[in-house]
């Protein structure tokens, strides 16, 4: 059956919002479409009449530095994110996550906007953006606004974005500018993303983890830890972060951090993918690996 009846290609965010609210419904915005079209086809998404293609909106395909932030348009293909040197420089966790999303062909159409709008708690791009403390720019008929990243999610597969009238325009990733500290060592920031898969079944990670940190000598000045699926929405291990912030990094502090992480995360059992116990059992190794890598990068 026809997956859509009408297809619109707006050329600006304003046009896109207008199309979204006025085109014959049901209406859905489409970016890469690699998830949406399959959901439509396989009956996981209710039928739509009009698709609004966001990839013709120039604003949403920008990837650039804006002041102290890196802006990544929501319709930028994941592969461009993976290859872009600015992303590599300021958000290496996102580079790594982007390189692991699906395969090369899908990455050439799939977008971060779609990855986030799909609202899965362990999507690779989403977990990297969580640790990078990104913000989203959301457009609606009443204008655009910034939203903290984790506020975009309501639950597994449930986005806070009202797709009948709102779209994610892009993401802002803060870039910490270097400041000289007393002992004149440069505090350095770095990030890392890794994941654990299983070779059977759906290609969703069993577990993924991203860490962003700021290091001065052997001290963790600041840290963000994201783990998927650590709760029903992309999970920030805030208690673990607090436990490590301002501390020397050593085996003792790492183990304590891990305890906080395990205490706060709500690992669940996903049928045929991983049990909660397995996730609890392997998260420590993954977290330490990611933390070690980010730490070394920040030296």
């Amino acid at each position, binding site marked *: 059956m026809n997956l859509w*009846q009408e297809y619109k*290609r707006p050329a600006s965010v304003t046009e896109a919002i207008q199309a979204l609210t006025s085109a014959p419904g049901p209406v859905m915005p489409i970016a890469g479409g690699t998830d949406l079209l399959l959901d439509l086809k396989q009956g996981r998404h209710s039928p739509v009449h009009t698709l609004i293609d966001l990839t013709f909106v120039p604003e949403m395909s920008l990837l650039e530095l804006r002041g102290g932030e890196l802006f990544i348009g929501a319709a930028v293909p994941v592969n461009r994110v993976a290859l872009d040197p600015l992303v590599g420089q300021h958000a290496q966790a996102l580079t790594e996550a982007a390189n692991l999303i699906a*395969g090369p062909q899908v990455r050439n159409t799939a977008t971060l906007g779609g990855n986030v709008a799909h609202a899965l708690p362990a999507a690779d791009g989403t977990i990297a953006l969580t640790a990078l403390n990104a913000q989203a720019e959301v457009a609606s008929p009443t204008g655009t606004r910034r939203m903290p990243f984790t506020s975009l999610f309501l639950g597994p597969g449930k986005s806070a974005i009202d797709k009948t009238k709102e779209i994610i325009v892009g993401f802002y990733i803060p870039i910490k500018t270097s400041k000289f500290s007393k002992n004149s060592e440069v505090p350095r920031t770095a990030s890392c993303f890794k994941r654990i898969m*299983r*070779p*059977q079944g759906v290609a969703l990670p069993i577990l993924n983890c991203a860490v962003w940190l700021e290091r001065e000598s052997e001290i963790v000045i600041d840290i963000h830890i994201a783990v998927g699926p650590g709760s029903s929405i992309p999970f920030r291990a805030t208690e673990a972060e607090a436990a490590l912030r301002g501390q020397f990094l050593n085996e003792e502090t790492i183990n304590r951090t891990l305890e906080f992480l395990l205490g706060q995360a709500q690992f669940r059992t996903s049928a*045929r993918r991983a049990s909660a*116990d397995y996730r609890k059992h392997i998260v420590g*190794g993954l977290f330490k690996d990611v933390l070690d890598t980010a730490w070394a990068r920040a030296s």
Partner: protein
Amino acid sequence: MNNQITFTVNGTKHTIDPVAGETLSTLLRERLRLTGTKIGCEEAECGACTVLVDGEPMMSCVYPAERADGKNITTIEGLAQRVHEEMKLHPLQEAFVEQGAVQCGFCIPGQIMTAYALLKRNPNPNSDDIRFALKDTLCRCAGYPSIENAILAAAQALRTGEPVQKPTHIPDSIHDHKTVGHSHLRPEAVQKVTGEAIYTDDLTFDGMLFAKAKRAMIPHGFLTKLDVSKAKALPGVVAVLTADDIPGEHNHGLVIYDWPVMVGIGERIRYVGDAVAIVAAETQDIAEQASALIEAEFDLQPVITNPVQARQEDVPQIHEKGNLLKHIKVRKGDMDAGFAKADIVFEHTFHTPTTDHAFIEPECSIAVPVDSRMEIYVGSQIPYQDKTQVARALGWDESRVRIVGQLMGGGFGGKEDIMGQIHVALLANVTQRPVKLLFDRHESLLVHPKRHATQIRVKMGAMKNGRLVAVDTELYGDTGAYASLGEKVMTRATTHAAGPYDVENVRADCYAMYTNNPPAGAFRGFGVTQSAFAVESMMDMLAEKLNIDRIELRRMNALHVGSITNTGQELKESVGLMECIDRVSSTMCQVSGLSQEDLFKPRVTSDAAHLIQSWGFAAAYKNTGLGGGAPDISGADVELYEDGTFQVRSSAAELGQGLVTVMRLIVSEEMAVAPEKVRVLVMDTDLTPNGGPTTASRQTFVTGNASRYAAKTLRDEITATMAEKYDIRPEQIRFADGVVHVNGHSMTWVEIYKEMKAAGQNPLVRYEYEAPKTKPLGAGGDMHFAFSFGVQAAEVEVNKLTGEVRVLKVISANDVGMAVNPLGLQGQIEGGVMMGLGNCLTEEFIVENGNVVTDHLARYRVPGIMLTPEITSIVVEHPVEAGPYGAKGVGEVCSIPTTPAITNAIYNAVGVRIDKTPVDQELIANELWKREGNK
């Protein structure tokens, strides 16, 4: 509607009106008729549909056509360039041909387009770059090593401007012949790399309708009500048929006619894929809508979910004769005496899941009414049985049905049963218009027969020195809703259950049971894949218990010339098992630099202490041919044409395995002409004699022999004619160097043709070859006319923290009798390893209470290039007297030992015995975790 869209395809500009819901793949294939772009899954999983959009590879099956506005698109048809009258292949295309990277060919356009984009970006890629770029472009023939070599060779040619390198690592056969035994290119390879190769779905006919079957989608019940009125009323629907509309026999089947073409009212639904109605409509979309409008009601019945349950008393009986398809028995010696004598007796139970062939080309059939006949275009492994089965359902004489076999995008045993053939014939007969039925991946996964899930309990008795004295096996096989080839498959599982060993006392009982799961039938390995996993695990367990080297243990018990098999057959020749064992054993040491005794110890090789490596070892054997008393016959025609070329014809199927090349080389050898002088026609029941089923690794043997003897006979006829005409002795006529030497004069084949015609002789020979007779199971004597042997070693790396398993290296030795085309053989062996690796690590077809969970490719993972280990192939050639030049089968044996080689390696690395496939990393991690806790 939106405005027109304008885009460029391969340099040509197109402006068209968009069509609602159209994807780029459909636009290219159906509107622009660029059918080189293939559709394998329509869910962005397989990569067959890859095209370049503005230089970047994209999956065209999930690319809205309207998005192509303003874009520049390159398809496979855009790579080769016409230079004067000749097509000049792109170096990538040439390299794919030369390196033997093309097998069934269906994935190849996607592979080449993906590789093309890579080389544009990175002219000097290494192996990692290639694997990264091709991660999601699946090849089920799994020619990944050759694909990688082809890309490297093309890159080099593009960088240097030098000709594309040919493979240098593939040795010729040890058996010396002019043509056979040397590497040759596939005749159809060029079409497969340019996108010109036609598969069934690429065909279109005037006035063609599109069909869709309404599937029951309940696992067990009675059809109580069926209302097709809404479907019939839908504009564009031309016919809706139900069981009442079948003019002939209602059931089909390969051995037992137990599978309803459609289930009628009051009749039993036995699995979710049962058809209750079929629709033909003007478009695919209308056919699908109509199918959805058909209303069916059922009286649901309790579901039989597994073969053990199926055999219990008081459970519902799925078929009239009950749930037992067959109790298969193997008896040899005296079990009590054997176990009494044994120093050690132990037993263990193993489980293997259902798996799917996942050929990249889904099933497609087209029926075309021609005068009072029906032509069926289909990629089928058994064209003549299709003909019989279609005729039966139509109630026609067989002569009115013609099967026109098409290239197949892989089969692996999964294209032996009837899928859409009868449905399209019924619809075409009623509408008198051509009808196409193309399965989407979902339907393919749901409907066609799979590999049997099994439960196998092995009890093994041995002497202290390792000599096996008794092996007792009990097998349960889940044959699903219908028999298909279930009885034959499980017979093979049973007869091979004690492994390739000489054992005095053997008993095996197998219960092939009907259940409400999708049917199970033929799948590369044919039951032996499952029982080999069990017995080869047992062999390693025994070696450990007795503290004997596992290779020594296998040597000590290995079948050899003079052994009596479990079915009472004396092996008189061609048992290359020991050589396979020896050569794998020494090659392991060579490639790893380890001593024999260190191979199987756990090793930490990097600074990561949680990554443990080790080797594992396994052996197997597999019959060539049908065996069991079935007459194993193939016919072939060889004909000389006016232009001095030959054609060899048989209905044997080319599914990517390379039979067409084998037939060509054999006729070329016999007639002493260049291979290019021999054309091959297969799979057309009007034009080619019956080659029998393409199954059981039999075609090189039987159709190879039929081709060979047909050619020999033609040669004899020519000799006789020329001897008479020139009044010379037959010995004065020699066939060599592309000509015929007649009493010192050389004559061209054009001249020979004229001479034959002038003598009133038609230079055409049909030869029906019958393989040596076999005996049924239980009768003793020769159950099979040949066996192939295979030994594999796998090196794995297990992550102790997560349980993840990586296969690093595989060494595969196969006794194939004689390597007819070493280049094709290499690809088949590498593909066999990859299919075995998938069977072991990634593949599990999940059915829950009769409902299919793995109903999309995204849920059923087949191995991609990223999982490909370094594969070393060793070809062992112990010839079979009756085989063509000594050849026997290889298609299956090369895939069988992989699973136990890997699971034995896992045990050797971390001490966790895997007795259920696929390997569950969570189970490994938990096991290790428990042990750590117990310390």
